[in-house]
C-alpha cells in the first residue's frame, strides 16, 4: 500500500485521478488549504482524514490530531482558523469509552486552538471494514492579511526554516504500536500552529513566501514539494536540522531518516533573505518555536533538486521517495 506514504506515489495518484476529474485553479495549486474569496471575504478551506494506529499514543490521540491537523493546514495558508466539521467512520463494536475519550480530546483541542466544531456526521461500518475509528475534518479560516502565500513563491536566496525538532510524532506512533521492545521517552509533537504562524507573519509580513506543515513524508517531502512548485533547488545542512536525542537514537537503531518522519506540530517556512533574522527570532519567542532553526537555503537549480550537505562534507540528493524508503545500495 504505497499510495498514502506521502511521497511520489501519493503525488502521482493525486495528479492522475483527482486533479483530472475536479480540475479548477484552487485545487490545482495543491496547497494545504484552498484560498477562496467569497463575497469579498478572503477565506481558506481545507479537509483531511485521519487513520492513525494506535488511536492513543504518548502526547495525543486521533481526535487531537484531527483537530490540530486541519487547524494547521489553515494556519500555514496564513489564515486564522474559525470553524471545523468532523465526520466519523466507526467499526461496528468500537467501544463507547474510547469514542468518548476521542471526542473529549477533540473538544479540548478545539478550545485550545480557538475554533468551534460546528457540523458533524457519524457512520458505522461492519466489523473488519474499518480499523476502529477514522475521522475526517474540514475547516474554514479567515485570511486577514493581504499578502498571499504559496510554495511556488520560493526564490533563489530565500532562507528555509523549521519551527522545531523533527520526527517526534512519527517515531512516537511507530513505537506506540508495541511491536518493539524499546523503552524511550518520546511524545508526539501534535499542536495547533496558528499562534506560531501568526507570530511569524506579524514579524515578517510579506517576507514570508510559504509555509507548510511537515506531516506525512516529513520535512524532506515538503522541501521537494517546494522545489518542484517553485522550480528551484534547496540545499539543506544536515547538522542544522534539529532532532531530539531520543528521536535520533531510535531512528538510527531502526534505520529511519528523521527528515522523512511525520510531524504534527512542526512547519517549514521559506522567507526572504532580509527577513530571515526576524523570522527566526519571532519563532523562537513562541513556545512552539523555541528550537526553530535555519536549515537551508533556496538556490537556482534547473533540476529542482533538494540536496543535503552531510556531516562529512558530501552532498546527497534528498529525493522524494516512492512509497516506503527502501535501500538503494547494491
Amino acid at each position: 500500500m504505497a499510495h498514502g506514504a506521502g511521497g511520489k506515489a501519493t503525488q502521482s495518484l493525486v495528479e492522475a485521478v483527482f486533479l483530472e476529474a475536479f480540475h479548477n485553479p484552487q485545487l490545482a495549486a495543491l496547497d494545504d488549504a484552498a484560498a477562496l474569496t467569497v463575497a469579498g471575504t478572503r477565506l481558506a478551506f481545507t479537509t483531511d482524514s485521519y487513520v492513525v494506529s494506535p488511536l492513543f499514543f504518548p502526547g495525543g490521540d486521533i481526535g487531537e490530531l484531527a483537530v490540530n491537523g486541519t487547524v494547521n493546514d489553515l494556519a500555514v495558508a496564513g489564515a486564522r482558523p474559525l470553524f471545523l466539521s468532523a465526520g466519523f467512520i466507526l467499526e461496528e463494536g468500537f467501544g463507547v469509552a474510547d469514542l468518548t475519550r476521542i471526542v473529549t480530546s477533540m473538544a479540548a483541542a478545539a478550545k485550545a486552538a480557538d475554533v468551534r466544531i460546528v457540523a458533524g456526521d457519524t457512520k458505522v461500518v461492519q466489523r473488519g471494514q474499518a480499523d476502529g475509528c477514522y475521522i475526517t475534518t474540514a475547516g474554514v479560516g479567515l485570511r486577514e492579511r493581504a499578502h498571499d502565500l504559496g510554495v511556488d513563491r520560493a526564490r533563489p536566496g530565500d532562507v528555509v526554516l523549521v519551527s522545531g525538532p523533527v520526527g517526534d510524532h512519527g517515531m512516537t506512533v511507530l513505537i506506540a504500536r508495541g511491536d518493539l521492545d524499546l523503552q524511550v521517552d518520546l511524545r508526539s509533537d501534535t499542536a495547533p500552529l496558528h499562534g506560531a504562524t501568526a507570530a511569524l507573519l506579524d514579524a515578517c509580513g510579506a517576507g514570508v513566501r510559504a509555509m507548510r506543515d511537515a506531516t506525512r513524508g516529513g520535512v524532506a517531502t515538503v522541501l521537494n514539494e517546494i522545489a518542484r512548485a517553485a522550480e528551484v533547488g534547496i540545499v539543506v545542512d544536515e547538522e542544522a536540522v534539529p532532532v531530539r536525542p531520543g528521536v535520533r537514537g531510535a531512528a538510527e537503531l531502526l534505520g529511519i531518516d528523521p527528515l522523512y518522519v511525520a510531524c504534527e506540530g512542526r512547519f517549514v517556512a521559506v522567507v526572504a533573505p532580509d527577513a530571515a533574522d526576524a523570522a527566526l527570532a519571532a519563532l523562537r519567542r513562541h513556545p512552539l518555536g523555541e528550537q526553530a532553526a535555519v536549515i537551508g537555503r533556496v538556490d537556482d537549480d534547473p533540476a529542482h533538486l533538494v540536496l543535503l550537505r552531510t556531516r562529512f562534507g558530501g552532498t546527497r540528493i534528498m529525493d522524494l521517495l516512492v512509497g516506503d524508503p527502501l535501500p538503494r545500495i547494491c
Partner: protein
Amino acid sequence: MAYGVISDEASHERLAVRVAGVVQGVGFRPFVYTLAQRLHLRGHVGNDTEGVFIEAEGPRSALDAFLCALDLERPPLSVIDSMTAAPLPVTGAPGFTIVASDASGPPAAQVAPDAATCAACLDETTGGGGRRQGYAFTNCTHCGPRFTIVRDVPYDRPNTTMAGFAMCDDCAKEYGDPADRRFHAQPVCCPACGPRLSLLGMDGSTVLAEGADPVAATARLLRAGAVVAIKGLGGYHLAVDATHPEAAARLRAAKHREDKPFALMVADLAEAAGIAEVEPAAARLLRHPARPIVLLPRRTRHPAHRIAEAVAPGCRELGVMLPYTPLHHLLLATIVRPLVMTSGNSSDEPIAYRDDDAMVRLTGIADVALTHDRPIHLRTDDSVARVVRGSPMLLRRSRGYVPRPVRLPWKLRRPVLGCGAALKNTFCLARGEFATLSHHIGELSNAATFRSYTEGVGHLERLLGITPELLAHDLHPDYPSTAYALERDGVELVGVQHHHAHIASCLAEHAEQEAVIGVAFDGLGYGDDGTLWGGEILVADLAAYTRAGHLAAVPMPGGAAAVREPWRMALSYLDALGGELPDLPVAARHAAAWSTLRDAARAGVNAPLTSSAGRLFDAVAALLDLREEVTYEGQAAVELEQVAQRGEVAGYPAEIAEDAVLSLSGADLVRAVLADRLDGVPVPEIAARFHAGVADLIVNACLLVRERHGLHTVALSGGVFQNTLLLGRTLDGLTLSGFRVLTHRQIPPNDGGISLGQVAVAGARDRR
C-alpha cells in the same frame, strides 16, 4: 583472396571502400596513404562522420592486396567494425591524396579510447636528445589522449581541448607529413608549442616551479612526505610516496577514506613484480594500452619496497598500474619508488578534473598541485581489472576502454539508452549493432555525481550522434537513474529487472542469444515482487526471464542501515535459525539494541525482506567478528574472502526446498558457521568452508534447474562474483557437472555492467 593476373592500364578498376570502427585519430589515413603508395594505387582517402572513405584505382591484383592489408596491417589503436567495397567508374586521375574531413551527416565515426604512451614516444621523451626529451606531453597517432579531450566530432584538433595550442612549424610539418608517425595526430605538440607543467601552491597562483623543473621538484616533495595533486589524463590523482608511512596515513585521513585500499603506480613490470606476484596474464593486462589498475597478490616475503601499512590495510592484494602518460614516466623515473596514485577526490565525491574546481576541492588534502594547461573535457577514472583463471576480468571499465563499443549479436531496431543502476553507475548508448558503455560515473545519490551523469549522457549522445528512442531503466523506483528516465520526454520507457540486466550483460558480452540458467548474486536489486533480490537463479534469455530459485528471504533490520552495518544481518540470520541465542561476541557488543532490532525484524518495522547473497556474506563476516560496519561497498565480503584459507575444503551443506521456485537455505550455511565458531574452529577454515558451501549450493541449484528446464549453459553475474574464491569453486563445480559456463571478461560483473544488460533486454524486446 585470389590475386588477379598482371594487367595493363586498360584493365584498371576503381573501388569505393568504406571502413567503420575506431578509425579516426589512430593514424588510419596515413596508413592508407602509405599502403596506396606502396601498391602504386591512385585515388584518395578521407574522414567523414561515418568513418574512413577511400577511393582506390589500379590493377585488380593490387586492389585485392590493398583490401587484405587494410585489415591485416591496420594501426595498433584502430578497430575495424565493418569494411565494404563497391566498384566505381575508372577516372584515370593521377596520384593518391588525403582529402579534407567532411563533417556533414550523423557522427557515427568512433572516437578512440585514451592510450598509454607508445614505445617510440617513450624513447623520445626519456632519451635521444630530440626536442621532446623530458617533455611531459609527447604523443603520436599510436598513443596519447583521445576520449578525455574530445569536445565534439569529427575528431579534429579544433574539436579537442588542444584547440588553444597553435602548432609550431616543426610540429605542423610532422602533422602534415603522411609518412610521419604524427600525421594528423590531433594532440601533437612539443615544448615549443604545447601544454606546460607547473607546480602550484593550493591557492592556484603561487608558482613553485615551471619548465622542466616541476617533475624534479615534485619528486623531492613526495620523498619528503608531501601529498601532491597530479593532473593526469582523465582527472586529478592524489599522490604520495607509497613507502612513506606518515604521508600515506595523512592522505587517508584527509580523504575521509577509512579502509578502502589505495592504488599504486610503479615504473615498470620489474617494479610491479617486486611488490606483487605478476603472472603472465597479469603482465599483459598491466601493459595493455588501457593501463588499468590490476589487482595483484601482494608479495609478502622480501618485497622490493616496504609499502606503508595505510596504503592497503590488511589486504592480500595490491592495486597496481604502470605509467600511462609521459608525465608519469618522467616522475616515476625520478622518484624510483612506488607512488600511491588514488583518485583526486574526497570520499564519495566524483574525481576532480577541472583546474579551478580541483584547487578548491583538494585544498586541505593536497599540499601542492602538479598541473598543466591542457584542459580535460571529460572526467574518466582509472579502470580496474584482475586476472581470474588466466583471463582478465574488468571490475571498472573506464579510462582506456571507453568509448570502445560492445558488438551486439543483432542490429537494434531503434536506438537505446540504458540508464544504469545507482552505485558504480555507467550508462550505455546503443544503435545498430553497437552498444557503447559510458565511463564510470559513480554513486548517483551524490549530487555532483548525478550532475555529471546527466551531462555525460548529453555529451556522449552528441559524440556518437545517437538520439535514443528507447530508455531502459531499473525497476527500483528510488534510483536516481530511474527518476532521470521518467523525466525524459519523447522516449519509450522499458523497465528492466536488475538481475535480469546482470545476466543479460553477461549474455551480451558473449553474444549468446539462447536461454540460459542465470545466476545473479549481488548486494541488492529491486525484484518484480517489490522485495529486494540478490541471490537469484533465473531462467533467462535476452528478452525475458523467470525466477527459478533464490536464497530464502530474510529481513534486513533497519533497511539501508543493515547494508552499512553487517552485524544487523548476523542478527537477522540468527533469528531465522530460531532457538536460544548462543553466547556470541557480536550479540554481546550490541546487547542494548539486540532485542529491539529482533522485534523490528519480526514485525517488519523498516525491515524489508531480501534474498541477497551479499547480505549473507555480511552476516557471516559479522558472526566471525571480522567486520560490523562497512566504509565501502562489499567490504565485509572482501574481508571474508581475504581471511579464507586457500586449498580444497568441504563445503558446508545447505538444503534446497524444491518448490515451484527453488528456495536455497542460506540459514543452513549460517547454522554450520555458527556451530564451528562455537566449537573454536579457526576462522580461516570456517570462511573457506562457507565459500565452498555457497558454491556447492549454486551448483546444486543449477543441477535442479537443468532437470526441470533442460538448459546446459550457466551465466554467472552480479558483484558477488568479483569474489575469486567463490567464482573459482563455482566454475569448477559447474564445469565438472557438464555445464557450459559464461563469466564476465570485458564487462564488469557488478552494477557497472547493468546498463549494457538493460540495452540488450530493451533491444531484444523491441525486436519481437
